[in-house]
């Protein structure tokens, strides 16, 4: 509820600021388009091909991991690493396309080892081919009969990888690279073109952040092909209004850059930080709720529960990435290590009050979630 009040407030204050500015400098007026299409001299000034490449690389690595889940292949750590580093421009022959971009060098530096360890563990679990149990990596069966591969603590490799990349690459790049003063601050070049390209550096950096979101340019009218954060943005939208919140912020901010209206641009930046953080927090609550229901059904639902728990855990880890996060590192660590816990198998044995506590702590940090915490 409070969030719904917040959005129009921010929007109104943007409008207010924008009217001040356009009076001041007589620059081009702020014209916010309906879709993420901006042109200069009749040509598009938007380009985020590098981001699309990385979304595609993530999809193909996930697909490779899923083959391991289905026991179709034995996973190979070096193959995973070659894809993560994009060796030879095509993940050493494992990608269906070539690119000079890679995921590894865009990863939050503290998490590179996390992914490399995950690849090594996935390989040995896949090669061993055991049934998973407490302390033993192996396969679990989901509700639909398909299998997933989990580590010795019950974390599903595929989900841990995917949610991990969403946090440690996509959010990290948006939060700690593209939305920073270094890339879109008021002093970044926004008059001269970036080399021979049809965009200024400031415009381009904004577009690159947008590219990591994974929406079509005419979102949310068009909801086809939503990828990664876009898909979760859409799932949480009925509760937190995330689709319009982010799309309006990206559109308005980009238009403000064209109009050199930096007060408005900077306001939209703040909305973008808040929007992504809220999607991650609300998604974490959503999965923790799901897990509570599943675990209450007993061991038959373990595969399904650990799958959802791996997603929730991934979103919680992703929250660490924000430099402006509302939740403290100490609380996040407490949730991850104590209330959810590193070993998912422990949750089965005990009562589920740890998950309730985790949700309570999230709601405390994000009061906007208070009224919707059970519905999420």
């Amino acid at each position, binding site marked *: 509820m409070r969030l719904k009040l917040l959005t129009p407030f921010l929007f109104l204050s943007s409008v207010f600021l924008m009217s001040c500015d356009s009076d001041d400098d007589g620059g081009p007026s702020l014209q916010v388009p309906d879709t993420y299409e901006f042109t200069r001299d009749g040509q598009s000034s938007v380009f985020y091909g*590098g981001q699309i490449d990385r979304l595609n690389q993530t999809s193909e690595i996930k697909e490779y991991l899923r083959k391991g889940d289905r026991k179709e292949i034995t996973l190979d*750590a*070096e193959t995973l*690493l070659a894809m993560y580093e994009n*060796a030879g421009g095509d993940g050493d022959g494992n990608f269906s396309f070539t690119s000079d971009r890679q995921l590894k060098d865009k990863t*939050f*530096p*503290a998490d*590179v*080892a996390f992914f*490399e360890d995950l*690849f*090594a563990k996935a390989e040995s679990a896949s090669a061993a081919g055991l049934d998973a149990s407490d302390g033993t990596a192996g396969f679990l069966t989901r509700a639909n009969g398909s299998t997933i591969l989990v580590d010795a603590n019950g974390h599903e490799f595929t989900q841990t990888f995917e949610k991990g990349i969403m946090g440690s690459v996509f959010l990290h790049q948006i939060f*700690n690279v593209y939305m920073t003063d270094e890339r879109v601050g008021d002093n970044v070049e926004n008059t001269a073109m970036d080399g021979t390209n049809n965009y200024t550096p400031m415009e381009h950096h904004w577009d*690159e952040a947008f590219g990591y979101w994974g929406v079509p340019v005419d979102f949310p009218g068009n909801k086809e092909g939503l990828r990664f954060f876009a898909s979760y943005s859409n799932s949480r939208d009925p509760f937190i209004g995330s689709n319009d919140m982010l799309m309006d912020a990206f559109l308005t901010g980009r238009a403000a850059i064209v109009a050199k209206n930096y007060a408005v641009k900077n306001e939209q930046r703040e909305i973008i930080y808040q929007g992504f953080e809220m999607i991650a927090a609300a998604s974490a609550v959503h999965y923790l709720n799901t897990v509570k229901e599943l675990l209450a059904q007993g061991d038959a639902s373990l595969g399904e529960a650990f799958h959802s728990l791996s997603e929730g855990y991934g979103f919680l880890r992703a929250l*660490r*990435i924000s*430099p402006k996060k509302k939740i403290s590192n100490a609380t996040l660590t407490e949730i991850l290590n104590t209330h959810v816990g590193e070993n998912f198998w422990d949750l089965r044995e005990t009562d589920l009050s740890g998950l309730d506590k985790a949700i309570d702590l999230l709601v405390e940090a994000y009061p906007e979630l208070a009224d919707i915490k059970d519905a999420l």
Partner: protein
Amino acid sequence: MLTRRFVNTLILIAICAVAASCDKESSPPPGFDRGPMLENLGTNIIVPAYDTLARRANLLEISAIQFTESPNEENLGKLRDAWLSAYIAYQHCAYFNFGPADVLVFNASVNTFPVSKIKIDDNISSGSYDLDAISSNSEKGFAALDYLLYGLDPSPEFVVEQFDTDDEAPARRQYLLDVIADLKSRCDAVFVRWSPAGENYIGTFVSLTGNDVGSATGMLLNAAIQYLERDVRDGKIGIPLGVRSLNVPIPGNCEALYAQQSIPLATESIKALQKIYLGKGISEGIGFDDYLEALNARHNGDPLNSVITAEMDVTLAKVTAIPEPYSETVEQNPDPAMAAYQELQKLLVLLKADMMSALGVLITYQDNDGD
């Protein structure tokens, strides 16, 4: 707060100094001839540093052959000692990443860390690898040896077993020898390029007496300061501490992680910098201290040389005081590491801003950071 103000002041002074130097007629200043300084730095510091490294790399190879022929704890101990001794010698060479080292991509090919455990393990299992490839830097060098000699399990019994009776022992022995052969040949190559008896780059070095971009002074100072900034301040101390990752520490990125020798190597690195600055080889010779004195360079009224010399001592003391293992310190007791990082930052500003403008030498390297 105080620190930031201090740094701002320094930067301001640096800017003033640059502005002032623009008015002056060009170098050299009366009373200081760079020729003898370069002669001293080249003959008494740079060439001996590479010579020592080449000799220790040779001893390392001999120890490795002994160990692979008779894998036992005594030979492992000798091999580990030889590795550390060569690694220490390398710390004295790493500042000279220009000329031969630059051409040979020496630093990156012998000391890239962290290494890739996955790739090394796979190289051993498959027996298929090409250590000559540029892409193999994370599979070899001092850090790969750290992993091979300590990483599997630090206990000597276990390591000996890995090289003696384990299924993969023959392949592991071969990999060890191949990594060391690669390392040794690179140490030899860079020494030969510098040596007066070899390709005599030192002859070129001492002849470039200007202070422009391509001069010996310009190349040396740019290489040394860049190394201090990226590899010492950041690579050895700051990155494991989390200064580039929202203060989330990265223990796995420590130098000599498995041997737990990060701080001794970092300490050695500061000592190496002192020697270069003071021009101190076996005995005290002409260095940048003398150069700054000759220019009468000042810093807030004090001689700039005294300020730099004192800051080097403080930095050395703070770095030395960081508890080992560094990989645990960054997570459990970061304050001493942060204190050392801050001194490294102060030292960097003194050298990169104050000294460089006093000497009229341009910083030519840039922060690279593409998308």
